[in-house]
């Protein structure tokens, strides 16, 4: 496949450094996951954790906590972080703009507006039904952004301006409804601040197909985007159908981000920042960039969720906020150390 060969070959040293980083990040991800199961308001021994997997006993409180709360929460953090970071890398490459964020496609704005409208007009207040409303809102607004942004034929600038204008509009609409209706605000606040709290296995299972489809589309897109990084003309001459490739990448983003926002509410930062961290380890190749983004995004979310449980932060700080608090300085440090890379 010719597209594969367009990625510049790395020197052996660089490539092996990349593999070492990959192993290190994977190991710390496992360690973090284990810690995330172990610690919280009620520390649980390694032994009980193990037992809860191999010999589940519904009468033991420890087992209930692990299987009913911590494990779904850990999985949600994994999925949310990985999905956001992956779609961030996709949108930045797609718009060729290092400041693009998956929220730019209007997914967060549309999902929030959908949930608010649902509370405001229909009086629904059951968080479980918000999942599908948020998904639908995000989908509709992304379709709007896509067509306003030139339906795959416009310049990246147009997509960016259209997306930013529409998401700002949706967020403002939602916000004004909230200010009008106190009841909506009370319900909405619970949803938007919910973060990774109270996510249960059935919700995860229902959203899993979207994450899986998104991941598959992202993997396909990584090949296309590698070619598109060389410019639209070169990509076309490599036999790529630009409109289709852009559409696929957008679908991947919608699946991943839509599922995330409907599960955990809008989370800023991870999608915008983690790809920049990933590029420090991966180089310019989109396939590696996506892989590192996925792992680093998951790691950051788990770490954020874990630190959010520390008593210093009141025992239950939103993972999104903690991610920014931890990730911001980390980004600064990485950039000062390695210099910034162009997209």
């Amino acid at each position: 496949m010719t597209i594969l060969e367009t990625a510049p070959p790395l020197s052996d040293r660089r490539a092996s450094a990349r593999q070492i980083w990959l192993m290190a990040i994977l190991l710390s991800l496992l360690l973090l996951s284990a810690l995330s199961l172990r610690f919280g308001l009620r520390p649980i021994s390694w032994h009980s954790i193990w037992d809860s997997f191999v010999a589940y006993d519904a009468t033991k409180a420890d087992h209930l906590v692990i299987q009913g709360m911590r494990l779904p929460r850990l999985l949600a953090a994994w999925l949310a972080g990985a999905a956001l970071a992956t779609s961030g890398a996709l949108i930045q490459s797609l718009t060729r703009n290092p400041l693009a964020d998956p929220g730019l496609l209007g997914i967060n704005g549309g999902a929030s507006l959908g949930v608010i409208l649902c509370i405001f007009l229909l009086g629904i207040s059951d968080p479980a039904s918000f999942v599908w409303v948020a998904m639908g809102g995000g989908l509709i607004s992304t379709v709007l952004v896509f067509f306003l942004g030139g339906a795959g034929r416009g310049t990246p600038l147009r997509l960016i301006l259209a997306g930013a204008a529409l998401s700002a509009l949706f967020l403002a609409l939602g916000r004004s409804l909230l200010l009008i209706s106190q009841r909506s605000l009370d319900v909405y606040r619970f949803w938007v601040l919910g973060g990774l709290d109270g996510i249960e296995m059935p919700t995860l299972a229902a959203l899993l197909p979207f994450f899986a489809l998104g991941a598959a589309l992202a993997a396909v897109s990584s090949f296309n985007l590698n070619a598109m990084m060389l410019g639209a003309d070169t990509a076309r001459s490599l036999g790529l159908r630009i409109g289709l490739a852009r559409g696929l990448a957008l679908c991947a983003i919608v699946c991943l981000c839509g599922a995330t926002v409907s599960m955990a509410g809008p989370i800023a930062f991870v999608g915008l920042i983690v790809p920049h961290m990933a590029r420090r380890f991966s180089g310019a190749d989109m396939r590696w960039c996506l892989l590192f983004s996925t792992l680093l995004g998951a790691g950051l979310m788990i770490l954020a969720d874990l630190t959010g449980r520390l008593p210093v932060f009141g025992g239950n700080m939103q993972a999104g906020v903690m991610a920014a608090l931890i990730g911001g300085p980390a980004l600064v440090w990485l950039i000062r150390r390695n210099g910034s890379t162009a997209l």
Partner: protein
Amino acid sequence: MSWSLRLPFLSLSFSPRAVAVGFGLLLLVNLGTVLALRLGSYAFTETSWLSVLLGAGSEIERMILMDHRLPRILTALGAGACFGLSGAMFQTMMRNPLASPDVIGFNSGASCGALIAIILTGGNVLLGALSGALFTAILVVGLAWKNGLQPQRLVLIGLGIGFALAALSDLLLSRTDARTAADMAEWLIGTLNARDWQDVTIVWSGLLLLAPAIFWIHFPLARLGLSDDLSSSLGLRLSPLRLGLTGLGILLAALAVCTAGPLPFVAFAAGPIARALVPNGKPALLGAAVIGALLVLAADTASRMVPSIQLPAGVFTALIGGPVMIWLLMVQFRKGKL
């Protein structure tokens, strides 16, 4: 086509279209100001506002006009101009439409400072916002400086710091009692409620003081749109220039944020709207300033028009600016641009 102005100490050239658009926008500002003076929970007739302004009318009417509406309108205009200028400067310097101070998080320094001030002193938002912005600016530039100031590094470090500060604001918000939190939340959306002449003095004297610097920097800024190699070979010193632009842009954003709160979307939208009106590849600082002023004025007037609900102006900036921008995008697309 261009017109030239040549005086012994000054020579400039203008394009007629820019001049025409400029006059049109100024006319709009005047019309908008008059409308904003008249409209509200107490409406003035077509002529009465003028006589009240000139000293006639009852005490109440004078109070409404002179102590409430006029300072509020002037603050809105000044803050909007600051937002527009700051946004256009950053966008042109970084050659990136997303690099406006509200998107890359330079505003969150001011917000965070204001919140800390509310917690510590209960009031004095102004001083807090200003020192927060300056502290952030020094931190970001200090961290980004490494053999000169490279735009991409500046933006990314700004993002990192900005997001961390925004998270800190959230943390503060969740740690305080409900009443202070409500105060803070309203301030965070951006409102021009209860502005007095002190705010007017601050934002306009700040603008006036910075005006010579803005005029001076407009000249090299117009050349930064060329690639680095070119602008450097034309005799520009990039790093000092970028440092000056960053400082100026952050000062302007801080002025706007501390008088009007972190109104969303204005700094981002003003530049692209102005450039769409005069598409000649120049930064259009003046146009962005006027568009910003118009946007904030319209948002504030709209928020006064529905007094029973008390929506803050920050909700309306995007409600008004968003459709304007979308409309311009459609027009440009029909013309085959973009």
